[in-house]
């Protein structure tokens, strides 16, 4: 199904004479007309933005977004000297280390499971996929105010009562032990698992049936062996893509952290569960320090870019589910 591979096919650059003739003015004009909006848009909202933000990160920009009050590396010093920022990086790292394998395993497991169904496959596929239609805000709202609310009638607390725990647990507020992680991890699992299950399901369905038949002839009967020797290796590309997408999305977590954890009218959330993006939001919009905020944005961006480049294949993974706009 992934047939739109932008492989560089033979059809690419034509060497026919018409090619040369077309390269004159009308071709240029058409090229400009068609690419200009995109190029201009990306120029302003990516290149200029990042360049400006980078310059601003060397400015004392408190209460302003204008350049002019240069202060060298002060913002970077403030940022890296702030345990809250370094802690936010550790927080997101731990979150990523946890949410990525769990989502991966769950979505792959569900894909295998759904694929094995003879009837009702579409029904269950839809069941697992439909949470992807829900926004992080709505997910956070249900989790915070109903599933894991601190009142005795919350779903989790009602279950806890059934299990003999007769004290209402403040799931979101509990830091020690950090029960709020259960809330944050499960909401993201619910929202994103279906999306990745679809990817795995498509990958599985692309595996030629003959492979399994041949393996069975060779005596590999058990499901586990078939999975290990055929399904898993054949899903390699899908798996790599899924892991990358999961990591980049996890690293930019904001929506559910903001909506579940912020418990203040001031909007300045608390130390625990503060992700880098929440930290930046507070620094820039809460404390009006756009210099430090830009420095932080640059650091976080570089971390993601370096990571993506390390993977050696940056094409196709810059996009996130909640790309701005």
């Amino acid at each position, binding site marked *: 199904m992934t047939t739109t591979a932008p492989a560089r096919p033979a059809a690419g650059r034509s060497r026919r004479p018409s090619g040369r003739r077309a390269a004159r003015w009308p071709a240029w004009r058409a090229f400009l007309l068609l690419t200009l909006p995109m190029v201009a848009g990306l120029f302003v909202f990516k290149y200029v933005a990042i360049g400006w933000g980078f310059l601003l990160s060397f400015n004392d920009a408190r209460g302003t*977004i204008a350049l002019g009050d240069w202060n060298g590396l002060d913002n970077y010093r403030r940022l890296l000297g702030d345990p809250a920022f370094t802690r936010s990086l550790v927080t997101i790292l731990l979150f990523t280390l946890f949410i990525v394998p769990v989502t991966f395993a769950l979505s792959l497991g569900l894909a295998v499971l759904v694929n094995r169904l003879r009837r009702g496959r579409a029904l269950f596929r839809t069941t697992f996929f439909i949470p992807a239609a829900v926004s992080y805000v709505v997910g956070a709202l249900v989790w915070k105010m109903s599933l894991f609310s601190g*009142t005795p009638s919350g779903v989790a607390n009602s279950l806890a009562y059934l299990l003999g725990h007769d004290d209402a647990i*403040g799931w979101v*507020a*509990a830091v020690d032990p950090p029960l709020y992680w259960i809330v944050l991890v499960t909401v993201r699992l619910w929202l994103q698992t279906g999306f990745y299950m679809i990817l795995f399901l498509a990958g599985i369905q692309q595996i030629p049936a003959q492979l399994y038949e041949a393996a069975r002839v060779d005596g590999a009967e058990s499901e586990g062996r078939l999975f290990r020797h055929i399904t898993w290796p054949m899903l390699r590309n899908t798996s790599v893509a899924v892991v990358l997408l999961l990591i980049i999305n996890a690293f930019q977590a904001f929506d559910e952290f903001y909506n579940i954890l912020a418990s203040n*009218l001031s*909007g300045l959330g608390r130390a625990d569960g503060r992700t880098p993006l929440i930290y930046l939001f507070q620094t820039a919009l*809460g*404390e009006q320090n756009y210099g430090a905020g830009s420095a932080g944005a640059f650091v976080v961006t570089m971390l993601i870019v370096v990571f993506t480049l390390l993977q050696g294949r940056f094409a196709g993974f810059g996009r996130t589910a909640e790309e701005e706009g």
Partner: protein
Amino acid sequence: MDRPLTRRGLLKGSVLFVAGAAVSACSTGDPLAKGTSAPAGSGAKITLTHWYHEYGEEGTQQAAMKYAADFTKANPDIAVKVSWIPGDYATKWTAAVLTPDGPDVYEVNDVSPNMVKAGQVTALDDVLGAEKADFNPKVLQPYTWGGQVYAVPMIIDPMLVFYRKSLFQKAGVSVPKSFAEFAAAAKKLTQGKQKGLFVGNDGIGDLGQMTAWSSGNLLVDDRTITYDDPKVAEALTAVKDLYDSKAMLQGYSTDWWDPGALINGAAAMQWVGLWAVPGLTEALGDDFDAFPLPPFGPGGRAVVNMGGWVQVVNGKSRNLEAAKKYVRWLWVDNTAAQTDWSLAYGFHIPPRNSAAAKADKLTSGPAKTVMDAVAAHGIKQPALWTPEVRQPWEDAITDIVKKGADARKTLAAAAKRSQDLLDKVPVL
């Protein structure tokens, strides 16, 4: 050759048309786009935008809009558009005032030197005029920089501990005179589904800062951070013990500023403001009262936090004079509106001494208790305790209270950071 040419022309036209339509839809074609001039139909030449945070009490939004309409009636060439901003008001106004199109008039809790320097506020001495002497000086002081006042106080919001008299009686608890008694009361009042104390859904709320104040340390003294102090460490350790005792309500459906938890009996004591008195009276009759947070330790003092809102005028406003005129009309001249705003919905103390003296509704019942407590123990947060300076302290509280970090060490490190941030605040 004729036909294809036409076709090509048509096509080019249509592509351009689509792009053009789209662009104009984004910029001007939309009926909802913010009007830059006066709204159609009214004869006003100028439209001011005026932002409020959300006051929880019913009728407040309508009242704010009525004041604005009354102003336009008196000044037909100036219309006022009231924007009511619920939720995370602080980050919303901060983003909006960065741009040339921010609100002309808005309300804040604090005015920092950075805001003055960035032109987000403007000096309002001429707006206060001769009436300046009538404003509570305690409340005017934190908004004064370089000898100029940058805000007109709208309301004073004292915050303290409210409690249910009947629940105190049932548990045999009397109004605590020390923090130790306070903590013991909270534990004693925790019975079944009822918790002893509610200070915020995160379990700490303002209690950390207030308890530190009650130990006699205001955390910052002019340009010096003072909270690296054994007394403060002791106070926070006591808050931690209280937190650990499971006597505090957490994760309730409304937060501390709403008296819901007290009304529904989810907690027997709650940290909340004077504004809640009408709602409490309606729901509980006279089954409630208030007391200041009792002193912590020997050198301590009782604490009533004097919060509140002040009106500022955006220094970048295109209609500075009109905005000033409006603020003077509403918050200085129009004593009827001020009284209405302070007393007809939630209760607040009018910032003008003459108005406060005439506030009959505040002279009886729990409101009087609050007023007396304010007179004796009211503390106004120091001006330089800005959100940025405050952040390390707030993180330290979480670490100490919720995670059992070493109080002395944590405070020392945080105080150093706060001091660094404070040193960067410009001197005006």
